[in-house]
């Protein structure tokens, strides 16, 4: 039975919408501290070179310049997931982003002028720009900071996973399909460019950072390690963040550089990227080559999957190298499959390094897997919808990797989009000579209740109600635009009967808020929501006791509504603020405050990567119809039908925002977006040639939420943020292949690739 809620499930606008659309929001770019200087970074001229000398003498002389630093001027540790990344580079440059020197000056213009006065002598050397070449024995060692843990000097990280008897399942397979898929570099293109303001107080030696990190507590620790400081001497404040999408999971060199400039000058320093710098020096979605072989038995049951992935790690290792954690989940556990063997290597090259990006490897994996499923169906002569329904995941299933599907909307999502898209009944009217229509289906599995990748995947909350009946939620989690503040306020409003305008969410200051691992893995509503509900439970116990005393009742069951506490099944209650005043101001004088730490039930995976890594799992399916212009190769996405197992809709408006935004990123990934590189340099560091889609390209999106009410989730909800992007490219590719009878293996599917494929098919090219 579905419970009726007063606030939860209602289309409540984002609480910070007004300040954002009126320009009142304070972004990092708006911060102006007294005496603040402007920092700028000199990057290498060559993606691979020996740095013979750096001469900063002229730059230092320039009036208005306060400080110039190079690697020789600082005593710091390397940063990055593998600590293989020097903040300032010394002796050699290994990638086009490499930071050689940094300047702090009175104005941005002076800082830029100073950069031009720095003289660097480079000895250019041949770089390695291809991951397969980097694996060749003759290739030079690209990153000198790794320990040589793996068989090849250029392997930064590797993963091996398997379940089931692969050889046995191969024998049982009626058809086996093998393909190599190539995935591009995609950039986050956040509306706000990267920014930081650092203020070091050289009296008390404490560092204050205004930073747009997604993970303030991990960041505090990473920054402390980099600067050889004590983490608690670093206070991180998050101004309003203009887009995250995973790009702010890693700490990047410009951040400790800014701190160093502040430490050296004793003045606040701000670094803000230009748009071009943002394209060049912010992280990307990992490019990779996926070799996938998969089988199916005569009845259409999936038998095995064998996967080999080579990821271009770039010159340094970020969180991006760990995306195989998620990639292997898709291969091992999306649809039932009896055996799976998975190998992935992240390989150093002189290219730009990746980071994390919404979906965390899953869009790449899902693209390969869902393409191959279409091919297997083709081999069998089976319908593409039927093969998916036959193999769909189910409630109660424990997958080969040990994921527990306590609730599972996989089949329902597939059925929903198959039905609503008219997949079975539609005729594609493909008799037009020029325009060809096609439809494609793809689905996905993603963590829906956090992901245990750190000792704790938890979140703390401190909740207080003041004597005027206002509520303050101090949460460890943070808002990066996804709407967590609003959802948390809605939960408090639902449970405490306080209207939203009386609820404040404090979430931007590490000196104030309790621990949380950060915004990633679609975890915030789930983990921070459960944490808040825990704190509410405790606080209500205190309030109930006081209310009972006051009302002289033995009742301990109360309704909280309209700022009143009312014994269940009665009419007469007491005002909430009055109860709080009683608690505060009469003996035994207690605060209306409660704290709670929520740790999801998930487990660390063992060394074989097995275990139930998330509190719950989210599923989704999309059916997408496209029309391809065979004269130009242009693809028009007509309709997107999307069903997603969200557990429970907490706020349809915010959910819709996540769905639409995610899908559009997915369409861009499928059709247009690629950071093009040649010999380590980016060819299109601008919106002119990096083809992000615009409002006029938006297709019709038909969204059908599927509610499975997970017992672990707040009100039954699961994580939703990443899912909408994950199956989109796969479904579009399948639709294009359906329209033109092609075998698409690469993204993005730009018009020229389509015309080329058509010409090759006709034998005219």
């Amino acid at each position, binding site marked *: 039975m579905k419970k009726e809620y007063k606030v939860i499930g209602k289309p409540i606008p984002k609480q910070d919408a007004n300040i954002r659309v009126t320009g009142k929001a304070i972004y990092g770019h708006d911060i102006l501290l007294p005496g603040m200087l402007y920092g700028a970074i000199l990057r290498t001229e060559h993606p691979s070179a020996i740095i013979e000398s750096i001469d900063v003498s002229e730059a230092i002389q320039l009036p208005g310049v306060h400080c110039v630093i190079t690697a020789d001027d600082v005593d710091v540790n390397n940063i990055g997931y593998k600590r293989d990344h020097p903040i300032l580079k010394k002796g050699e440059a290994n990638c086009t982003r490499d930071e050689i020197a940094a300047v702090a000056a009175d104005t941005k213009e002076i800082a830029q002028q100073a950069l031009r006065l720095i003289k660097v002598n480079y000895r250019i050397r041949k770089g390695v720009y291809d991951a397969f070449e980097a694996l060749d024995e003759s290739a030079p060692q690209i990153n000198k900071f790794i320990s040589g843990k793996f068989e090849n000097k250029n392997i930064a990280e590797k993963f091996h996973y398997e379940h089931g008897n692969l050889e046995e399942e191969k024998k049982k397979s009626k058809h086996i399909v093998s393909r190599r898929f190539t995935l591009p570099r995609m950039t986050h293109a956040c509306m706000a460019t990267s920014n930081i303001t650092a203020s070091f107080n050289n009296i008390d030696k404490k560092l204050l950072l205004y930073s747009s990190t997604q993970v303030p507590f991990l960041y505090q620790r990473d920054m402390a390690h980099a600067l050889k400081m004590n983490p608690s001497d670093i206070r991180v404040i998050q101004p309003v963040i203009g887009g995250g999408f995973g790009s702010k999971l890693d700490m990047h060199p410009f951040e400790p550089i800014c701190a160093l400039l502040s430490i050296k000058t004793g003045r606040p320093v701000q670094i803000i990227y230009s748009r071009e710098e943002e394209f060049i020096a912010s992280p990307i979605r990992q490019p990779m080559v996926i070799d996938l072989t998969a089988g199916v038995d005569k009845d259409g049951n999936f038998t095995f999957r064998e996967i080999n992935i080579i990821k271009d790690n770039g010159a340094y290792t970020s969180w991006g190298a760990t995306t195989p954690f998620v990639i292997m989940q898709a291969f091992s556990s999306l649809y039932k499959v009896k055996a799976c063997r998975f190998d992935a290597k992240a390989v150093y090259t002189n290219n730009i390094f990746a980071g994390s990006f919404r979906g965390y490897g899953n869009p790449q994996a899902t693209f390969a897997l869902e393409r191959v499923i279409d091919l297997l169906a083709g081999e069998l002569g089976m319908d593409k919808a039927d093969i998916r329904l036959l193999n769909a995941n189910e409630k109660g299933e424990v997958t080969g990797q040990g994921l527990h599907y306590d609730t599972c909307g996989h089949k329902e999502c597939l059925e929903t989009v198959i039905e609503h898209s008219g997949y079975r009944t539609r005729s594609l009217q493909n008799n037009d000579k020029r325009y060809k229509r096609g439809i494609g289906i793809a689905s996905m599995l993603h963590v829906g209740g956090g992901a245990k990748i750190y000792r704790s995947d938890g979140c703390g909350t401190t909740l207080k109600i003041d004597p005027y009946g206002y509520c303050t939620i101090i949460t460890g989690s943070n808002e990066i635009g996804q709407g967590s503040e609003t959802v948390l306020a809605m939960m408090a409003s639902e449970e405490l009967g306080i209207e939203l305008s009386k609820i404040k969410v404090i979430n931007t200051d590490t000196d104030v808020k309790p621990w949380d691992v950060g915004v990633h893995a679609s975890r915030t509503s789930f983990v921070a929501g459960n944490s808040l509900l825990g704190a509410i439970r405790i606080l209500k116990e205190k309030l109930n006791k006081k209310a009972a005393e006051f009302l002289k009742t033995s009742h301990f069951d109360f309704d909280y509504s309209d700022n009143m506490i009312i014994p269940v099944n009665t009419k007469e209650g007491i005002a909430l603020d009055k109860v709080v005043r009683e608690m505060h101001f009469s003996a035994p004088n207690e605060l209306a405050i409660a704290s709670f730490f929520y740790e999801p039930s998930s487990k660390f995976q063992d060394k074989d990567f097995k275990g139930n890594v998330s509190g719950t799992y989210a599923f989704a399916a999309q059916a997408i119809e496209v029309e391809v212009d065979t004269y*130009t190769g242009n693809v028009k996405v007509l309709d997107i039908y999307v069903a997603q197992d969200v557990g429970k809709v907490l706020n349809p408006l915010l959910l819709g925002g996540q769905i639409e935004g995610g899908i559009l990123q997915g369409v861009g990934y499928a059709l247009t977006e690629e950071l093009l590189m040649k010999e380590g340099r980016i060819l299109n560091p601008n919106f002119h040639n990096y083809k992000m889609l615009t409002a006029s390209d938006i297709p019709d999106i038909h969204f059908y939420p599927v509610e499975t009410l997970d017992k672990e989730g707040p009100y039954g909800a699961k994580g939703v943020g990443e899912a909408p992007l994950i199956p989109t490219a796969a479904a579009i590719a399948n639709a294009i292949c359906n329209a033109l009878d092609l075998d698409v293996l690469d993204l993005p599917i730009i018009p020229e690739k389509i015309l080329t494929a058509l010409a090759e098919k006709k034998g005219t090219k």
Partner: protein
Amino acid sequence: MDFEIINPATTLELLGTINELQSKHFRFGAGYSDLLMELKKKPEENLVVINLSQIKDTAFTGLTISPDHVRMGAMVTAHKIVMNEQLNKDYPVLHQAALTLASTQIRQVATVGGNLCTASPSGDIACALVALIAHCEIMDSTGKTKSIPITDFFLGPRKTVIKKNEFLNGVLVSANNKLSKNIYSAFLKIGTRRSMECSVVSLAYHIQTDDDGDIIHAGVAIGASAPTIRFAKDACDYLIGKRFDHIHQKEKEEFATKVLSYADPITDIRATAWYRKEVLYNLSKSIFE
């Protein structure tokens, strides 16, 4: 990017300014949607910008439609073209070219003069005007004007015939025959996205038939396919006298081949020369489908 700026308020003041600055390095600024990009990429030393956007003379800012021609002052914006119903009806190629230019915001400032004088091979309004066989009205600093056919206006990428003591005052398009009946006219722009897109290939055509359907006038221009926008004269001549709705497959192909003979595209980050040619050929055929 650093420059001095001068703001003449009338054409007369503009002439004076041009005269005064003959020994200096100056550029004109109209909507600035090309100029600022250019200067950001390649800053120019000691630059003076003559701001045209404050000049109020209607010959410079107005759009007039008379029985024998359409005249657009150099400062007419893409937005103004888009909003004109008459142009939309009688010269769809021009309307469509203006409508596909950049975005709503940029169309408010982007001018016809800027689009022509920037002389980009992928200029959309310029391509439509070549198909319409427009004439460019050039004024010199003494106030004398001359009119030259648009096909003589472009010398190469970013190069026009305009001399240092001259500027573009306006553009003239001859009226269609016989009350603008039987018009087949469109701007076909190919790129990856539907707005904020620079043409990868474009094809502009403006064709008129008599009441029997025989082609009496044809203008076809290609954009982003050669160092300048080109008028496909042979292809146009080929069409004269043919029935527009009875062009058969072979003729379509012959027409497309003739259009293609004017193409000399490059391979760049946005597309290969092969792609541009392939698309141009297909688009040329598509006119009659």
